[in-house]
């Protein structure tokens, strides 16, 4: 292993929580701690088109890779206009001096080949310019013409992961609720898109109110709540075929707030009967529902731990909305939120170390994170209405919905790093709410 030091990357931890692995895997080493002071400069020249049919992808691929990396807030792209070298052959030696001269710390070189049968092949290499070394092996991805953006995301994922030591997350999707119309007559449809807002596809029409979709652990199915029968009820939808079915339920009850267990076999959800809302679990393919809470208070918004053994949920049993953790089989629950205000919509992080939540305090809404022992609470956002966090597959980024106030209230998706930096609006046309991030695609 080559040990490289990038002295001009001085990273300072200013806050108490270190949410990152202690060890960085890569040598071109950008260890993300709270308070990174300067993004790492990188260059990604247009990919080399290895045949005529591939030329249409050469620029587009590089643009998506650059957008992924700069979108993290951890990287800064050096514009093409500053380049001294051009890259015309994927296998030519890199002119390190030319890239050093423009202070490109990392260089991503790619090539694309469009073969017969609508197949596209993308290759890439990552270079640590200042040490004059290739970082990791070159990689190659293949797919259909229509999946060219996924290949760009895979290149960016590999570069991001090698440099930061973090898990990948760009090659992922988000299911959400697309909203149109005025506040008192909103039309809602389920929709799915790439994590960056591209390739939006609708999964339902707007005839019924739909709420809070959630991905299965493999991303192939979505649980959601619909008013299709006139009453809120849980459905499971196959993403590929858009076929859907209602989960078995008890007559006269209302069900909502479903989530999958990590093995994809079980659904945990809320059921309202006689005005009381409790948490239940059920096999996705049917069977007898198991009641996990039985209190006269509201118990809802359950979310499994990554190992499937515990559930974090919200309850107003103390008199106000707070967060609790219990066994996945129910039983005694331990309260974990004790700060001022109300806490709801807890979501266990994929790393298992944190829970993200919505907090209401003094007329404002916040997205925050805390550890599972309730310590280390940190509010990442504040606005009139921020709600419903969802984790990126690597547990570094949180997406949520933000609604503006008043009659013209507009709802949008935002993302924020778990350090609280890099708050960004996700570029989706029209209103969007209730995001749920998929696992990393295969």
């Amino acid at each position, binding site marked *: 292993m080559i040990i490289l030091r990038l002295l001009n990357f001085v990273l300072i931890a200013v806050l108490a929580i270190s949410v990152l692995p202690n060890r960085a895997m890569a040598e071109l080493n950008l260890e993300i701690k709270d308070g990174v002071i300067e993004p790492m400069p990188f260059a990604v020249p247009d990919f080399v088109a290895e045949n005529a049919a591939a030329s249409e992808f050469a620029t587009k691929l590089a643009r998506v890779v650059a957008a992924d990396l700069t979108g993290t807030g951890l990287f800064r792209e050096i514009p093409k206009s500053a380049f001294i070298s051009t890259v015309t052959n994927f296998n030519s030696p890199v002119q390190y001096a030319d890239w050093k001269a423009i202070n490109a710390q990392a260089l991503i070189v790619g090539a694309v080949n469009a073969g017969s049968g609508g197949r596209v092949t993308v290759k890439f290499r990552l270079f640590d310019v200042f040490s004059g070394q290739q970082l990791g092996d070159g990689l190659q991805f293949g797919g259909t013409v229509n999946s060219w953006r996924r290949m760009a995301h895979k290149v960016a994922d590999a570069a991001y992961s090698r440099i930061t030591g973090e898990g990948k997350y760009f090659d992922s999707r988000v299911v959400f609720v697309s909203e149109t119309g005025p506040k*008192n007559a909103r039309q809602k449809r389920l929709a799915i898109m790439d994590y960056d807002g591209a390739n939006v596809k609708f999964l339902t029409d707007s005839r019924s109110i739909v709420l809070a979709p959630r991905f299965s652990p493999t991303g192939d199915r979505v649980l959601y709540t619909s008013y299709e029968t006139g009453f809120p009820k849980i459905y499971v939808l196959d993403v590929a075929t858009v076929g859907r079915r209602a989960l078995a339920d008890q007559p006269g009850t209302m069900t909502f707030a479903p989530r999958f267990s990590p093995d994809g076999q079980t659904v945990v959800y809320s059921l309202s009967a006689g005005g*009381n809302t409790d948490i239940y679990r059920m096999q996705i393919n049917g069977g007898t529902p198991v009641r996990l809470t039985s209190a006269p208070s509201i118990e809802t918004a359950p979310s499994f731990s990554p190992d499937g053994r515990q559930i974090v949920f919200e309850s107003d049993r103390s008199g106000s909305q707070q967060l609790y953790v219990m066994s996945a089989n129910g039983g005694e629950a331990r309260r974990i939120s004790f700060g001022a205000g109300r806490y709801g919509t807890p979501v266990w992080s994929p790393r298992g170390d944190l829970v993200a939540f919505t907090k209401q305090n003094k007329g404002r809404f916040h997205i925050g994170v805390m550890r599972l022992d309730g310590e280390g609470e940190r509010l990442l956002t504040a606005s009139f209405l921020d709600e419903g966090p969802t984790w990126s597959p690597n547990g570094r980024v949180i997406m949520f919905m933000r609604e503006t106030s008043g009659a013209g209230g507009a709802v949008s998706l935002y993302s924020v790093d778990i350090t609280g930096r890099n708050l960004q609006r996700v570029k989706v046309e029209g209103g969007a709410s209730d995001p749920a991030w998929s696992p990393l695609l295969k």
Partner: protein
Amino acid sequence: MTYLIKAIFIVGALGLGACTNPDHLSGNGNANGAGNGAGAGSNIPLDPASDPTSPVYFSQTIGDRVLFAVDTSTLTPEGRSTLTAQAGWLQANPEYAAIIEGHADEQGTRAYNLALGARRANAVQEFLLSQGIAANRLRTLTYGKERPIEVCSAESCYAKNRRAVTVISAGAGA
């Protein structure tokens, strides 16, 4: 007692215009109540708002909704009085059933507001049951914060959105 209430409301209804409300059935219930139908040979249709057996009369004159304080499902004295009148109407019009919708204002998270709406709808249902309305005529439904009627982000609107609405439907029992 029931007659007295009806009589008062009939008088009150005369002064009301036929305003429409998006929450309500708008006159699609059978307006030809016994003894109040237009006489044979008359071509003047009966205004459902003045027919005390019509769902429109229920929503406009009896009052189809009760309001709640922030994050509560406790019935107010005004709410109880409205619900007493609703129970009277339901007693007098046994051919109708009702769906009770619980709603919340926007100051809350989605799932919590669904649960809160369910509590509010249930509070109304419990009251109507206590007044002798048969359980098979009533069903509850929560909309949480999905269907506000007022759209401003101020207490004046929130107060109207924190509501339970009794929506009359044809046919008794589900």
